[in-house]
């Protein structure tokens, strides 16, 4: 619903939204180093960041999808299918550049299928992507069963390469570059403007000439393409492709996006927030792990974090809007 003065208020709100994860990151640093003396070690934390590169790429795509008022539960399955297909292609003797192109194209195609079902068949995105969540991983499983495909040895270990002369892993640097591009697309391009418009009010933006269906297909395709890139990363990081790669990763990814201040109802959100929240999740997981907190506690914490974040934002928003109404009536 269009509200007067939305833009200026949005601008303010955005800053606040990124503040939440930023403050939490600091808290996580403090709590983490209190929990274990092995935690605060920049080299270790930098190296650990490579474990979250895939989640980061998926989260960037998810940010766009959620800002457009949709959701994509199939990202981790897309990743798995592309990972299996591209490892098979390498195995069949394709060259690396061709495989990279194929992986990105396949990812984009799978995303397009999601997008078309949402945009043209008019089915809610959570339902479409629950279906493709099963379908994409199902195809990967039907192709490979429980077996794994080995990667050529020279392509293994991208996560252990560093930007020359630094201790920054290539994976992390790459993620930051791609995040910057995504941020520019979202904030400086027509597409970004349209994505926000569709997420804020689809009908209004349709009547004001935004190609809403095209925008939806585009965000899903971008999310798929980033999942394709993430698939190549995980193949290289693990040295093998399996159908069960990254199973359940969508929970971490959606948590990161929502925690980063992107509104689950669409329209609002930022790439910076998502990245900060991902950093937070990485810190929590790494911190709990290095303090020997059992994996099942991590499951419980991440799940609760997702729900608590949305509850807290909703509550905060309701309080804020109440304040707004008061101010307006006072005027």
């Amino acid at each position, binding site marked *: 619903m269009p509200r007067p003065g939305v833009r200026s208020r949005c601008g303010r709100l955005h800053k606040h939204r990124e503040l939440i994860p930023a403050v939490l990151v600091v808290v996580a640093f403090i709590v983490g180093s209190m929990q274990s003396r092995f935690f605060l070690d920049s080299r270790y934390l930098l190296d650990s960041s490579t474990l979250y590169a895939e989640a980061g790429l998926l989260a960037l795509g998810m940010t766009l999808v959620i800002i457009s008022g949709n*959701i994509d*539960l199939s990202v981790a399955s897309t990743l798995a299918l592309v990972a299996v297909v591209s490892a098979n292609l390498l195995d069949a003797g394709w060259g690396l550049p061709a495989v990279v192109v194929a992986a990105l194209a396949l990812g984009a195609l799978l995303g397009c299928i999601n997008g078309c*079902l949402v945009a043209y*068949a*008019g*089915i*809610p995105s*959570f*339902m*479409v992507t*629950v*279906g*493709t*969540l*099963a*379908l*994409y*991983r*199902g*195809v990967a*499983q*039907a192709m*490979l*069963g*429980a077996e794994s495909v080995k990667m050529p040895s020279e392509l293994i270990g991208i996560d252990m390469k560093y930007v020359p002369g630094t201790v920054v892993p290539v994976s992390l640097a790459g993620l930051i570059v791609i995040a910057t591009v995504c941020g520019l697309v979202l904030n400086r391009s027509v597409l970004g403007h349209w994505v926000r418009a569709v997420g804020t009010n689809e009908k209004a933006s349709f009547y004001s000439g935004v190609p809403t269906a095209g925008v939806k297909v585009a965000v899903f395709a971008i999310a798929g393409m980033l999942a394709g890139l993430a698939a190549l990363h995980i193949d290289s990081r693990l040295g093998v492709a399996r*159908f069960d790669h990254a199973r*359940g990763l*969508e*929970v971490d990814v*959606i*948590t990161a996006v*929502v925690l980063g201040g992107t509104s*689950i*109802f669409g329209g609002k959100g930022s790439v910076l927030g998502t990245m900060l929240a991902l950093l937070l999740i990485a810190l929590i997981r790494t911190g709990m792990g290095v303090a020997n907190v*059992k994996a*099942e*506690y*991590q*499951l*419980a*914490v*991440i*799940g*609760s*974090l*997702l*729900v608590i974040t*949305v*509850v807290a934002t*909703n*509550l905060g928003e309701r309080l804020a809007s109440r304040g707004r109404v008061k101010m307006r009536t006072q005027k």
Partner: protein
Amino acid sequence: MKITALREFGVLLLLVLVCTVAAIREPRFLEPSSINSILLWAPLLIVVGIGQMMVIVTRGIDVSVGSMLGLSGMLVGILFRSQPGLNVGLGVLAGVGVGFLLGSLNGALITWAKVPPIIATLGTLSAFRGLIFIVSGGEQIDGNDLPVALNQWTLGGPLSVGGVTISWLLAMALALAGAAAWFLAKTRAGRDIYALGSNPEAARLRGVPVNRAQFLVYAITGALAGLAGVMYASRFGFVNPATAGQGYELTVIAAVAIGGTKITGGSGSILGVVLGCFLLGAINVALAVLGIEASWQLLVYGVVILLALLIDAATRRTLEVRQVA
């Protein structure tokens, strides 16, 4: 109404088709042994499916059902282990109670804290699974921790004809399905659920207690998943923290989708869900009997869900066209 009937008939037709093809390739598929297999495959799914269908009718989704099933089953198992000789009925009550509480949490988050259903239940899917490990300390419940009477649910049944047994599990599931069909069609609260699903705004304006209806469907789903947890213990004879109910949400959603429940809300029938569950059961048993490597399972669920979605979209479009004309 006509469309629902058509969909039910379609599922029935598909069921017959699957059975015929399987029987042609392996005549033993029609023997009591294999029919019993299908009849035991379906009950848990029917019980959870009833709840999931109501949720989907209200335009929601509950992906935490597998974790709720596991958590309730685990807690009941722990109860039985610590209180040997405990009445099975009390155990069931505990399972349903735990499930109801978990479902109520989902319901409260969605109804009053306004968390979108997919987000709320995705969060609790993780959180409840973590809790299963925490309450159990990672230990599984073994067969000799469970009362013998519980085993009887699967072993025995009220009716047995020519080697085909209607087990207590199935009888319970069908009785619940009957009760749910009655509840949805004949009670005020049941009809409110459809009203909420077909048009939330109109329902609100008409004075339908939409919040109550929305909360109710998630609480009911939780309670049913809780019961399914106890049934799981009976069927499989053990409850493992990692595998109990893991990934069950996709199977359930597939069964509901194929059963003709409109994914965009507003319509759906219990009979369709029951038929959908039997269809998935028949497919799974057929794959095993025909010796087809069942790494196709997940793929089948995905295709089924998407097919149902497409049929939905297509019928909707035809209706719209007709209305315009």
